[in-house]
């Protein structure tokens, strides 16, 4: 089976997952107590106002009709409107989603680029001082709460050293003097495409601290997973035969063993990627990062169902795509894996 047919098959199966999530979140949001119409109406509305809004939003109709309306809007690409802010969710997400994706992608890249080499060396020299040191780093990365890490990072790099900004995606000066022409919503990409290097480095400067803090968890996971699977791979016969062939330690570790050992780390970090889309809200809040985590947290506090459903669906899609990417990567790395 070729990669294309595999992709098509997996995507068509994923449609069912998506529909399941859609049905579940939609009906759960309608069943749990709360009065969205009253929320929409604002502070202290009169009963007839609430009734009017109910009609306007279609909340007076039977549930299955409401669902059909929602689905037909969804098929048009319309995620609806926030009950709280009355803004279009599409517009909001076009701002918040790229911000979060930029942050999470940066964090995952840091985790993989730093964590995998560390895991390789820790696995190659077990029980060395380096191994024990990395265990400590990995356990700390996984177990230290991100909000605490964020505050400490701000204290060190902003308050004490003054190297990095406190928060936000870009400084006011940069946004005034070197405005980024929005295309993808990824500041780094948009700035680089338009050769707006002042804004690029300003945005990069803002990205470093939150990305580092957010990378702590996947970093710890990447180190541990790589270390464990490296120990396994290095005990294999093909490593003995590579040593007998006089290959260098660098080739043996980073080429021959790592290719066999990298998949578990990629899988787990991939899952943490999807999780971070909404899980990053503490980091986003502390660093005033206008992302999905912050957006959906506010929506939950305001019982803003259209937003909650919309974000759930977006995260579902990200999960599906990340899992697909991990499976494709596995097939790419291992010729014995049959796509199907």
């Amino acid at each position, binding site marked *: 089976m070729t990669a294309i047919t595999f992709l098509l098959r997996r995507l068509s199966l994923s449609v069912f997952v998506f529909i399941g999530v859609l049905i579940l979140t939609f009906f759960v949001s309608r069943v749990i107590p709360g009065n969205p119409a009253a929320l929409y109406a604002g502070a202290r509305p009169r009963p007839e106002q609430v009734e009017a809004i109910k009609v306007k939003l279609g909340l007076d109709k039977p549930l299955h009709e409401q669902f059909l309306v929602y689905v037909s809007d969804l098929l048009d690409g319309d995620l609806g409107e926030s009950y709280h802010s009355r803004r279009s969710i599409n517009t909001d997400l076009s701002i918040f989603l790229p911000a979060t994706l930029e942050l999470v992608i940066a964090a995952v890249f840091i985790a993989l680029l730093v964590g995998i080499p560390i895991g390789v060396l820790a696995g190659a020299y077990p029980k060395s001082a380096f191994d024990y040191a990395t265990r400590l780093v990995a356990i700390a990365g996984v177990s230290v709460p991100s909000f605490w890490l964020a505050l400490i990072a701000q204290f060190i790099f902003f308050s004490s050293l003054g190297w990095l900004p406190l928060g936000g995606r870009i400084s006011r000066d940069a946004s005034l003097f070197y405005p980024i022409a929005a295309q993808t919503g990824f500041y780094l990409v948009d700035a680089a495409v338009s050769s707006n290097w002042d804004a690029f480095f300003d945005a990069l400067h803002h990205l470093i601290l939150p990305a580092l803090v957010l990378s702590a968890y996947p970093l710890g996971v990447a180190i541990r997973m790589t270390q464990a699977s490296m120990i396994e791979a290095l005990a294999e016969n093909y490593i003995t*035969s590579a040593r007998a062939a006089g290959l260098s330690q660098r080739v043996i570790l980073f080429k021959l063993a790592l290719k066999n050992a990298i998949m578990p780390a990629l899988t787990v970090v991939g899952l943490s990627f999807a999780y971070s889309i909404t899980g990053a809200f503490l980091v986003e809040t502390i660093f005033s990062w206008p992302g999905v985590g912050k957006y959906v947290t506010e929506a939950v506090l305001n019982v803003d169902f259209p937003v909650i459903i919309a974000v759930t669906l977006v995260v579902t899609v990200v999960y599906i795509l990340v899992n697909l990417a991990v499976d494709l990567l596995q097939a790419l790395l291992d010729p014995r894996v049959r796509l199907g």
Partner: protein
Amino acid sequence: MTPILTIENLQVEFSTPFGAVHAIRGIDFSLARGDILGLVGETGCGKSVTGRSIMRLLDENAKVSAGRILFDGMDLLQLTDTEMRRIRGNRIAMIFQDPATSLNPLFTIGEQIKDVLRAHRGSGRGGAKALAIELLADVGLPDPAQMMSVYPHQLSGGQQQRAMIALSLAAEPDVIIADEPTTALDVTIQAQILDLLRRLQRERSISVIFITHDLGIVAETCQQVVVLYAGRVAEKGAVETILARPQHPYTRGLLAALPRPGSRGNDLRVIRGNVPSGFERIVGCAFAPRCDYVMDICRAQNPAFSVIDSTHHSACHLHEMPANG
């Protein structure tokens, strides 16, 4: 002519939670240039450990406690890790028992050969590829150019071992240590691989240490044979004399234990008793407890080698008895 490889009083110990295991209790032999030397013995007699000691690829809990391994004027045990890496694959290569697990499953055959070439020959891209294809053709793999892009799991066991042999030949080594290279293969494939090894050895005048427990293979393949028992050499010499006139009681027992076409229906001959454990401290001859000809001196003193003739040595007190002849 000086031998290409000489092993002197090699002793190897494994440290275990239960104490030291004496895997090799002092062995001496040498490999002549262009010879195939069979290293035979039962499981646990130290034949594989000897091979790995030469390559310095012993597990971490193993240590060479005494001895020298002389190769081309150097003591391999004294080399630095970097110097040793330049020997491995390049001067002394190794072929392993199980080709299915000894080839890396995630790299093509071509890539694995090119890795060896890059490590020792520094060949440019095109040169390495042409050389690799030539090697694959030489080991008798069909359609060698296409074999370059094939993964190990797409090959049969015999083809995998051919690829493994191509890999070991890549850097044109002087010595190949073949550690039971045919044990994992079907009998018909075994014969083909043995033929291939013999042909390549002859054409490239490589010296080979052939580790096996199969005396039949030794008879067909080797010029010299070293019989190991419990980490010591029992008997060594030219294959035809040892197989025709074994002197050591252990070698005689081994040969008598081989099933023969005429003995169908009769019980197989066995050597009574068991191999001593590596934990034991052996006083006297290691084979004494199982030997039919055991004498008092055998339990007290480890026998020295007696020269049977210039090419044949046997470590047994029987040879010192004037009556025995």
